[in-house]
């Protein structure tokens, strides 16, 4: 069994004191990056990249990768406690995680997020260990036509799952896609919808401040309203919960087990594909759990499955995203692109020969990820108690802090004041949407999938030479088109079915 020998060799590299230190630093920095909204793993890795120029490449990679997967642990913490997703990959976690915190169940939510992350992170590494080269090849069959269909399918299917009326969800998806068209055209480079009197619009609207506004600032406004309505008497403010329990009960664990398992597999497979897989996988996982649940009515009101599934998915997706990088040397996302840069500086080129030419780098990284995930679990579980107590702070203390973090975070993304305005505006919009009974998650989805849809539409048109019927002759696109038709026809079918039942 040569894999075991290789893995053992990997551990001999990863257990060197310097690499252990790198893994631990990566885990800690990653957690902090995850907690702070606005500062994402891409920014943190870019800042730290020059520091790694002077150290051994395997140590550098262990550190940088640690920041990446560590941030997926941290992102859930603020989602659950204050409804500000630390990362875009934790937007979905706010749906049920925050509700759990308001019911005094912040502890179980945080613990399940950490446990799910650990299971998924470890499984993801196992996946890399055994399947990397094979899966990487399979991912390449996805070309622009496949992405076009995938993006369309995602926009059609996913809004149905985040709750609220279907037509409201679709309306928000459409708005999200339209917002994403502001600024640079992803392939042509032309600039759209940026009038001369608002020059900052040229850079487009980043989805991170929108996410922070729709969730964080909107929640600040909501609690401010609650406070004003109770005419300033804090005893009337209902939002300070009591800690019902700190650790997940046996029932919680039982309910979370299957979602963690499904989220893990799902996230890993989606992570293999180019694009923001760690974000998209959380939406799909949430939808899947809601569909499979025996009590879908609890979703959005504090169902632990809604935390367990997505939080697992984003971690295994992170591992999945490393496969194309390590096995083919192709970065499918901006973060893996940074990791590629970090390795290349040392004259090492990832690719099919990486495993043969630089085994200490490849197996060292993999072994360090097993270790890093355990470190993150050890780091995060004891903090559950501390963080859970934060949810008990009175809103009067917490909300100004949240607002401050959101503003600083929004500014730090591109060092642009425009992002702060976007944040504030999205906050107001998010507040109004809440009042009108809209769940904003589909809007974020539209903004993330929009550019992918637009780029692949342009490319597909050129590649298939304008012959759109070709989409039916490619196996993968044909399957996805069939699924889309099924999704569209399903409501009509069920309605007819119900009617015939009634008649009979």
């Amino acid at each position, binding site marked *: 069994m040569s894999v075991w020998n290789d893995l053992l060799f990997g551990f001999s590299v990863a257990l060197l004191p310097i690499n252990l230190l790198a893994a631990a630093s990566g885990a800690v920095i990653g957690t902090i990056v995850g907690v702070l909204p606005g500062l994402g793993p891409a920014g943190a890795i870019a800042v730290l990249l*020059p520091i790694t120029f002077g150290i051994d490449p395997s140590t550098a990679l262990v550190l940088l990768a640690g920041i990446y997967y560590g941030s997926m642990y941290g992102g859930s913490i603020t989602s659950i406690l204050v409804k500000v997703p630390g990362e875009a990959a934790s937007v979905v976690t706010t749906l049920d995680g925050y509700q759990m915190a308001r019911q005094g169940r912040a502890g179980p939510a945080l613990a399940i997020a950490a446990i799910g992350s650990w299971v998924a992170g470890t499984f993801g590494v196992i996946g890399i260990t055994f399947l990397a080269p094979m899966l990487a090849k399979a*991912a390449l069959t996805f070309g622009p036509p496949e992405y076009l269909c995938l993006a369309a399918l995602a926009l059609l299917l996913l809004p149905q799952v985040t709750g609220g009326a279907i037509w409201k969800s679709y309306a928000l998806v459409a708005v999200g896609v339209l917002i994403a068209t502001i600024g640079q055209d992803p392939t042509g480079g032309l600039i759209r919808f940026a009038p001369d009197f608002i020059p*900052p619009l*040229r850079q487009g609207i980043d989805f991170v401040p929108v996410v922070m506004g729709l969730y964080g600032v909107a929640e600040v406004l909501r609690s401010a309203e609650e406070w004003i309505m109770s005419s300033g008497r804090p005893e009337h403010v209902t939002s300070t919960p009591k800690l019902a329990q700190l650790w997940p009960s046996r029932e919680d664990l039982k309910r979370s087990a299957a979602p963690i398992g499904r989220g893990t597999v799902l996230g890993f497979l989606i992570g293999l594909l180019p694009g923001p897989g760690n974000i998209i996988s959380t939406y799909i996982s949430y939808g899947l759990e809601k569909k499979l649940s025996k009590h879908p009515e609890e979703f959005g009101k504090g169902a632990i499955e809604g935390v367990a599934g997505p939080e697992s998915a984003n971690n295994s997706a992170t591992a999945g995203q490393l496969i194309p990088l390590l096995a083919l040397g192709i970065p499918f996302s*901006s973060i893996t*692109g940074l990791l590629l840069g970090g390795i290349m500086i040392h004259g090492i080129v990832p690719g099919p020969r990486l495993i043969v030419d630089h085994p200490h780098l490849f197996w060292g990284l993999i072994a360090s990820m097993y270790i890093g995930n355990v470190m993150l679990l050890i780091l995060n579980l004891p903090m559950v108690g501390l963080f859970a107590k934060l949810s008990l702070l009175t809103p009067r203390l917490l909300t100004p802090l949240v607002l401050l973090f959101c503003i600083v975070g929004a500014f730090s993304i591109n060092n642009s004041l425009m992002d702060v305005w976007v944040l504030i505006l999205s906050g107001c919009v998010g507040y109004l949407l809440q009042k009108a009974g809209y769940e904003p998650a589909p809007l974020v989805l539209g903004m993330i999938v929009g550019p992918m849809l637009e780029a692949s539409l*342009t490319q597909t048109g050129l590649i298939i030479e304008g012959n759109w019927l070709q989409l039916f002759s490619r196996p993968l696109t044909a399957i996805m088109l069939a699924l889309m038709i099924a999704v569209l026809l399903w409501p009509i079918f069920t309605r007819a079915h119900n009617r015939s039942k009634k008649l009979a």
Partner: protein
Amino acid sequence: MRSYDRLRRSFMLGAVLAVAAAFALSACSNQSEYPSKVVKIIVPFGPGGPSDLNARMIAEHSKTEFPKGIVVTNAPGGSATTGTFQVVSAEPDGYTWLYGGTAELASALHYIPAPYTRDDYQLVLKVGNMPTVLLVKKDPRWSNLKEFVEYARNNPGTVKVGTPGDASVNRLVGEMFAETAGIKLVMVPFSGNAAVIPGVLGGHVQAGLLNAPDAKAHAKEGADILALAVFAKQRVAGIPDVPTATEQGFDVTGTVSHYIAVPKATPKKVVNVIHDRLKKVLADPAYLKAEEAVAFQVEYQDAAVARKELDRWYEVAGNIYKRLGMKK
């Protein structure tokens, strides 16, 4: 009362004089002591790309020349016009630099409406080149550039070539090559260099127009990618096995070049300090070695020579965009 007034007035006068003197002094010392604070390099692209990486390498190797430090800041979007505009409208004190490329400084201005012109920035020096390369998936139908051209000639309109975007220099080089070779290539724009490679490997496009560092990264022994040609006068040091297009009978050269630029009104004295110190960095063996590892071709040019080169690209690009009907 009056004496008190006079006292107060003279006191005020003294204070004003003292403050003025302090300002004058500090202004003097600032002038002579540039750089006295942290320099900011604005990269008009997101983190992870070649511009970002190179800017960070320069910052890393400039620690002795700029002891207060250099921070690299990403200002992506708007086809690199956002970050460039941030620099041209920044305080012209020498503490804000642009790490700019051929497209946003010259060639793309024919096509992208930008809020600045070529007169709004002052070049400090040229850093180097990333010559365009033509990459293909390994295929018995074309093992060299001649065979590739032959295939394209016999199958007109079916050869698709991925580019990093319609505004990229790579696309212009591709159009120049197609014209010289007398073939028709369908240019498929992707969103950036990294996105092109999976398209080539998956066979969704037949070739990709990328940069020398991409060839270094992907066209390796044992890999499925082959670099057919580099569009440079001579072979590039980091990728010595890749033949030039000229060698293979097609006299086409083209490169993305990188420059350091500052706001137009930056004092000449300060610009000279930046120029002299960066020139030293560009000759530092450690820096050169690091850049060769990623196949970035370091090439120093002073501002006047660099300006001429950019002017020539602007003219070439104008003609191509006009021919393609893409000129704004």
